[in-house]
Structure formats: structure tokens, C-alpha cells
């Protein structure tokens, strides 16, 4: 698993609620059997004016000039500022794979869909949940910084659970201890679970005695 410690980066806005994972990475790109290479198709339907196909060279496609990630001021963005219920819909982990491949390592939003939120941590992406009023304020500040990207860079520090904004403000955020620990250290969570192999075996034996019909039924 990739680790996340401190990130200093440009913030880009994704100013709509209920951004679904179909929007983050449309289905035609889910045919890939790889874990990487999804970045050029992140937000494909919003970013380009034509319909994207897998395997295509995206550098020649017509860009939608209104889409923030296409605008020079958000070039190289690594933080996405978003709205409620980000990542709803399909469980596709291709969504965080696409974000990560594009270079987005942190998301700030008032709320996330459960499956997407969990998938982020598995891929070195930190999804930060802040109250809606604070997110509103960040959007306002971001839009007010009219010039180029450096004007709205934030520093996200996972160990200290803080975000420093350009105005000098420090915002604290909450994150689950176990997830924080895994993300900071880039731990292999399967390896961690397997450290409890004895407990799993003990449970399994007892469960098999209590519910024998759940075992060996499929084969």
C-alpha cells in the first residue's frame, strides 16, 4: 500500500454534490485488467468533448475548456476540493486508481460514499471530511485567488491531522486511528490481517460447528 505523510499541493475544485464513480471513471475503461493507466481518463466525460475509448491517445482529444482540471491555474493539482457524497454509486476501485494515477492524493469534502471512502485509503489517497461550512469557505477562498495555482496551495499533514491554507489558517481534521496508521506507514493490510491467522482459524472452527451448512456447500 502506498503511504501518505505530508502533501503540499495545488487545490482544484469539483463543485458539485453527488459526484458518482461513473463520472470519475466511465465504464468503458473498466475493461482493463491493469491497476494503472486510468489517469488520462479521469472524469473523461467532463474533461473531453468527445466520447473516450479505451486505449486511445488522449493528448489529441478536444478538451472541455470549462472543466477546472483543464485550466492552467489548476495545473498539477494534487488536492481535490469537492462537495457532499463524493464517490457515490459503483464500488469500482478504478475511481481511486484514476485519481491517484492523475496525481490527486487528497480530497477534501463534507462527506463521502462509504465504499469509495474505504477504497481511497487502500490506494494512498487521503479523503478528508470537513463540515460543510468550512468546505464552503475553502471554495470561496479558492475562487477568490484569481491568479495562478501557487496562490492556492495547501499543506496537508496526516500525522498532525492538519491542513494549512494560504491565508495561514490551520484546519484540524479527524481520521480513524487504524486507517491513519496504515496510511502513514504504507502498510500491507492483508499482511496485518494475516498476523491474526490463529484467531481467524479459531473463529472458523467454531463457526463451522455452529453453522455447518455454510461450509462446503459450493464446489
Amino acid at each position: 500500500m502506498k503511504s501518505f505523510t505530508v502533501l503540499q499541493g495545488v487545490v482544484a475544485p469539483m463543485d458539485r454534490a453527488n459526484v458518482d464513480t461513473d463520472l470519475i471513471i466511465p465504464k468503458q475503461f473498466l475493461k482493463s485488467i491493469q491497476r494503472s493507466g486510468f489517469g488520462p481518463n479521469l472524469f473523461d466525460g467532463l474533461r473531453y468533448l468527445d466520447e473516450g475509448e479505451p486505449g486511445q491517445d488522449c493528448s489529441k482529444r478536444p478538451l472541455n475548456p470549462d472543466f477546472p482540471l483543464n485550466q492552467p491555474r489548476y495545473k498539477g493539482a494534487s488536492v481535490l476540493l469537492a462537495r457532499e457524497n463524493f464517490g457515490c454509486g459503483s464500488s469500482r476501485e478504478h475511481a481511486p486508481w484514476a485519481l491517484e494515477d492523475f496525481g490527486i492524493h487528497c480530497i477534501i469534502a463534507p462527506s463521502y460514499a462509504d465504499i469509495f471512502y474505504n477504497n481511497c485509503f487502500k490506494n494512498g489517497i487521503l479523503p478528508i471530511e470537513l463540515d460543510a461550512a468550512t468546505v464552503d469557505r475553502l471554495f470561496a477562498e479558492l475562487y477568490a485567488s484569481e491568479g495562478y495555482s501557487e496562490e492556492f496551495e495547501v499543506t496537508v499533514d496526516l500525522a498532525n491531522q492538519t491542513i494549512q491554507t494560504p491565508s495561514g489558517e490551520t484546519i484540524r481534521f479527524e481520521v480513524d486511528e487504524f486507517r491513519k496508521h496504515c496510511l502513514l506507514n504504507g502498510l500491507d493490510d492483508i499482511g496485518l490481517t494475516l498476523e491474526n491467522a490463529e484467531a481467524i482459524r479459531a473463529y472458523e472452527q467454531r463457526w463451522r460447528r455452529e453453522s455447518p451448512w455454510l461450509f462446503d456447500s459450493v464446489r
Partner: protein
Amino acid sequence: MSGQTLYDKLWQSHVVQQRDDGSALIYIDRQLIHEVTSPQAFEGLRLANRQPWRLDANFAVPDHNVPTEVHERSGGVAGITDPVSRLQVQTLDDNCRDFDILEFEVNDVRQGIVHVVGPEQGVTLPGMTIVCGDSHTSTHGALGAMAQGIGTSDVEHVLATQCLVQQKMKNMLVRVDGQLQTGVTAKDVVLAVIGQIGTAGGTHHAIEFGGEVVRSMSMEGRMTMCNMAIEAGARVGVIAVDDATIEYVRGRPYAPRGELWDQAVAAWRELHSDADAHFDRIVELRGEDIEPQVTWGTSPEMVLPVNGVLPNPATIDDTGRRAATERALHYMGLKSGMSITDIKLDAVFIGSCTNSRIEDLRAAAAVVEGRKVAANVKRALVVPGSGQVKRQAEAEGLDKIFTAAGMEWREPGCSMCLAMNSDKLGEGEHCASTSNRNFEGRQGFGGRTHLVSPAMAAAAAVAGHFVDVRNW
């Protein structure tokens, strides 16, 4: 101390290890696998030199990418024309063979959409914990199981450890009492629920559906309800086990038999919330009040009764909601103030894990029998959820009713629900669809989806626009 909810019971019986930070290691009884979200998980296992923890807990079937067109399908995996799709389906076959996991391959008569096949084969049983790399795994909760969608990293995690690390969710009860009007179905009920609580209404919750309406619903209807729990933001939807559940499971190919069956049934009888169970949130609806529902926008919560009128953004105070309404109207090519019944259709899709079971096809066939699809509807697909549903429908002559009406009768698969194969909408086309998501581009680039029940979709196919199936 108050009693336990069904979800509490399912959770508690599967805790391997409780951790101080509130998370727990949860044992998984069944993992369902399909071609889209599993290749990277198998690859991960290989790279780390790991073996599946328990082979007989896994079951695989290709569904998302498989062609549903009869001719293309007849060639099996090798006959899939899109090379990228073919490789993905082939990779599932290869992985299942290499790791020795049971798979119903593409032309196995039992193949179908994973959420239709699981319950139908008895691979899904009450009391289980079930995962699948697919958000609509919530469907299986209709049998009193704790079933949820997971990402690919977790698919690998479950393959390797038979466990998942999770935080327990909160409990929500959606109670629908009273009686449904004739022509109003489970799909309308669940869309009405989503319209009321919103697509994030169930986030961090497991939703239990209860009340007289749910108790008197068929298992098919219950599956439709739980299927769309995720569209209300809840990973898990559950319904208490009762006689209907047990009768449904009895005799299924992978269901327990003999003495084991009796033991199982005795345990399953406990799978309901205690009378004094505590729910963090309760939502109540009256069955009589629910009308046939149609979504008009790009989120399942953008839904109205069939006699409704499209909203006017100018009257919405909340800026976020106003912007979302404007954007949705624009994407859908619709105007505020327009009646739902004035929406003209280019396509109709009857299928998906929400509504492709035998009862759904019967309802649609009853509406189109002896009639023709309207001239402006260029394409009407009927895609059964599984090979078994297909054979049953053919035995009842439903396929003939559909084809006589001018509809296409297809092979089982996800098809136009997400349009990963060639079954997709053209840009700007409006489709009456029995699936579960009306997101932008879901059924094809620029496609416009309206979610409805099978009966409503069938009536819309004949009329060429939405009509109230209660007056059919």
C-alpha cells in the same frame, strides 16, 4: 438493554476480533466474483505469493461484459468481438481455473448477473456475510444476509484472509405499512424511499426494510428493494427472514439438504430484529400513498410520481441543489414545468440485477401482450437476469410475447444497465430503464436514463412516452 436489530445479529455472529479503535475483523462466508473487479485482486495474490484462504467460499460468474446478442454469444468467450472485453472474461476463466474456484462460464446455462444467480442457486443463504466487488451486492440482504459491495483491494483481502476490516454501521429502519395500489411495485417503493431520504440518506447505515408492504412482498420484490439500498447510500440492505424466505431457498441447488436443512432453518428463524431493537433512524411510508415512480434527472433521488411535473430550479433556495437541478435538466434535455408523461422515449431496457427476474418479466409481458412497441421507440431490449430465468420465461411463452410486440429477446447479462458491451444508448436518447442508476453517461455517452418498474417500462414502450400503468 434493548434488543438487537437483524444487522446487529449478523454483525455480532461474524466478529473474529474486536479492536480498541472500534473496527473489527469480520468473517466472510461467501465471496461472489465477476470479471470486472477481480483481475487486479488475483494479480495481487500472485505477486504476494498468497493462496485463497478458503476455496469453497468463493463463486464466480462473468456478467458485466458478456455479449447478450444471441449470435455473438453463441461463440462463447472466443466469440466476444471486443478484444478488451474478451481478455477480461478470459482472465476470469483463467484465474478461476488456476486457483480452483467454482465458476459458471459464459455459456453455462446457469450463467447470469451475479446478484440474480447467487440467490437463485442457493449460493446466497440467510445468515451469511456476503461480499462482492460490486455495490449492488446489497441485493442479497433480501434473504436475511449481511451483504455488501467492496473494492478490488478488499476482494483480494477477502480472498487471502476470509475477513474484512470494518467499522460497524448504524441501524436505519424503513417501514412501509399499509397496502400498495395495483400496478405499484417494489421498484416504485424503493424509488419513493430514495426520493424521500436522498442518495446519501443511508450513508454509514445498514437499512432494514420492514412493515406490512415488505412482509407481503415476494422475494423478487424484496431483492429489488435491497438492490437499491446502495442508491440510498447504504452499503447494506436487509430484510427479516420469514416463511417466504425459507420457501424461496428450499431445494435450490446449493442450499442445504436433509438434517442440515432442518438445522439451518431453525437458525434462520432467529434472523429478524427483536421487538425492542434500537434503530438510529426510522423512516416511515404508507403503501397507499406510493404512486408509480419515474426518475427525471441524473441521480436516483431526482424522482417523481408519474403524474408529476419537472421542478423549477428558480424555486429552490439551496444553491447546491439548484445548480444540480439545472445541470440535470440540461443534461436530460428537459424543461422545468414539463409533465413526466410528456417525455418521449427512444429506447426501453428491461433487465439488470434490479428487475430481470421471472416476476419482472411476467409483469412486463402482461402489459405488452397483444400490443406493439411505439414507432418512436427505436429499440426495446428484454434481457433476462440469468439462464434459468430465460428458460423459465421461454417455458411460459413470455419471449414470444416480447418479440411479437417488437422487442428484442436477449441472452443474460448486465447489458444496457451499464453499457460495457455494445448494448448502449446513442447521444441524447431517452431510455425507460428498469435498472438502478441514471447517472450521466451510465447507459452510453450522452444517454438519458429514466428509472422505472418493469410494468412502467413496458407501458412506456407501447405508448412511446411515460404513462400511468395504473390506468393500463
